[in-house]
């Protein structure tokens, strides 16, 4: 059984002056231990909102989020159930997610349950080593670190709670290529060595392809495709997945311009009729305008929400 299960999660935001926006319109996702699940999509598709709903930072309007067999309840003024500390979140911006006035070590120590100071200090050093920070890092302040190192501190702080799952919201954005590579390798090692489940939200498809075992593709609040990373990348079943992959520039010096996907992500308050992707889809036909395709299972543990997915002779996967 999956350690983190999201079923048909719907998240509505109230709009000022009445009305609401459905940021997540029924999305399901599973994360297993030792597995990295990538969640990709353009900005405004609801992936960060889904991440927040997964850890209980925003309440789900309907649907369920279950962590280690227990429902994840939204945050309130009361203390969080103790079991939920094993579900951690790492934010995008390591410049604002750390307290500038406290040392790295004291912030990492917050999540450690040990009683004695000596044991806590020892554990902080262990965690620093685990994420590849020098031992002296514990006594330094956030401004003394580079962006990549700060993100390591944030990850060490999440690891301090001995988590089963860490949700990472764009952890690699705003980092240089080299720091990105270091951190991507670290995430892969953490999943493998500690048996952690990682939900990696990113708009960088190339990185996700490299580290994720499974990928879910989100468009306008819904999953349009999900499956094991490499088959999905090699033969995308949904036209949106195909468009996303074609837009990634290849760092091969080849001089080939990436394909652009015309149009913009529509306003989630007024989603298009039928298939949500139809106004931008190059394969659109009449059925797409009126009927919304469900997320249908395909062979090899894949699924796609497209009337053309899996049809012989068109999109064979």
């Amino acid at each position, binding site marked *: 059984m999956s350690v983190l299960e999201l079923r048909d999660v719907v998240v509505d935001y109230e709009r000022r002056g009445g009305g609401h926006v459905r940021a997540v319109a029924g999305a399901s996702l599973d994360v297993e231990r030792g597995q990295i699940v990538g969640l990709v999509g353009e900005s405004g598709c609801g992936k960060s909102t889904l991440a927040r709903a997964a850890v209980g930072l925003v309440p789900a309007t309907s649907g369920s989020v279950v962590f280690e067999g227990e429902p994840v309840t939204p945050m309130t003024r009361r203390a969080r159930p103790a079991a939920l500390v094993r579900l951690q979140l790492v934010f995008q911006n390591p410049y604002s997610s750390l307290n500038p006035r406290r040392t790295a070590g004291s912030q990492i120590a917050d999540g450690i349950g040990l009683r004695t100071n000596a044991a806590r200090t020892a554990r902080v050093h262990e965690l620093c080593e685990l994420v590849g920070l020098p031992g002296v890092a514990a006594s330094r302040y956030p401004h003394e670190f580079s962006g990549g190192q700060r993100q390591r501190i944030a990850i060490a702080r999440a690891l301090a709670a001995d988590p089963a799952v860490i949700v990472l919201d764009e952890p690699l954005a705003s980092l240089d290529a080299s720091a990105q590579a270091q951190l991507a*390798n670290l995430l892969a090692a953490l999943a493998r060595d500690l048996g952690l489940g990682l939900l990696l939200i990113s708009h960088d498809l190339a990185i996700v392809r*490299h580290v994720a075992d499974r990928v879910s593709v989100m468009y306008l609040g819904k999953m349009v495709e999900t499956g094991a990373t490499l088959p999905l990348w090699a033969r995308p079943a949904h036209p949106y997945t195909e468009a996303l992959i074609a837009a*990634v*520039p*290849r*760092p091969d010096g*080849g*001089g080939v311009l990436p394909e*652009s996907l015309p149009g913009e992500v529509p306003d989630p308050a007024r989603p298009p009729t039928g298939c949500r992707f139809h106004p931008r889809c190059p394969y659109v036909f009449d059925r797409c305008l009126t009927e919304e395709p469900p997320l249908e299972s395909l062979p090899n543990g894949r699924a796609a929400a497209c009337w053309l997915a899996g049809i012989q002779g068109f999109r064979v996967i």
Partner: protein
Amino acid sequence: MSVLAVESLRVKLPIPGGDVTIVDGVDYDVQPGEVFGIAGESGSGKTISMLALLGLLPEHSTVEGTALFAGKELIGMPRRELRDIAGRDLAMVFQDPFTSLHPMLTVGRQLSEHVRRHLHLDRHAAEERAVELLEDVRIPDPRAALRAYPHHFSGGMRQRIAIAIALACRPKLLIADEPTTALDVTVQAGILRLLDRLRREQDLAVILITHDLGVLSSIADRVSVFYAGRVVESGARGDVLQHPRHPYTRALLDALPHPEAAKERPLVAIGGSPPTPGHIPSGCSFHTRCTHAVDSCRVDVPELRAVSDRRLACPVDPFSA
């Protein structure tokens, strides 16, 4: 003839307790209709070397060297004169389309103000030019867009509007500093195609500054790789990015996930982190992170020399063909 020819550009910025060298002797030239790519990690001096040309550095900065733009020397040019060139013949687009537009002014006002100031058009002609520009960058319904405010548009659209403003006076050179970094890949592809069309149709020269070698791979004609304020390798796109010869260029490429590479291959991160200005290592500034460094690298500053098809600042040259 080059649109821009920069030689021995050196920039020092004032910090408490002295000056710190940010750009340390940079040469390059840009031809009409060409996309010239500048690659490098943050802090390598890419942006500062451009701001120096436009006179946009903080007071008491020192700029040395020459920068000939359309036959005129930019360095040391009086501010008034520079202001007439910058914005008209030489335009710049910045990374963040959320802060480079004025939030309280309509798109039309921002576009036409620019056109009226530099081209001395009347109100009506300026509006016509503004509509034309928005059409050029493929903004749907340009007449309605003129009356809208920046917050009505998505990031990609805002960057298109920023490019439209930059292009308003038909510049000869567009400096684009990380123009797609804040955007989704789908939108990025659109902006790259737009730049490619403009350079072909209008013979626009583009300096594209980015840390993303994928972006440079797809659009740049020539590439210079910056490290710690110097150029370490420079040449045609295919030569530099397909057969990198400087250990730093190669390391940058190895750190990237390649969309077709085997998944099992771990990304090869460069050890350590880029040096910060004021703490540049002696000799070759990359030697502390270089796996091919020999003793002399710690002492001798390598010169950027012409070697066969490119210019290279590495006497070890471990990847020579």
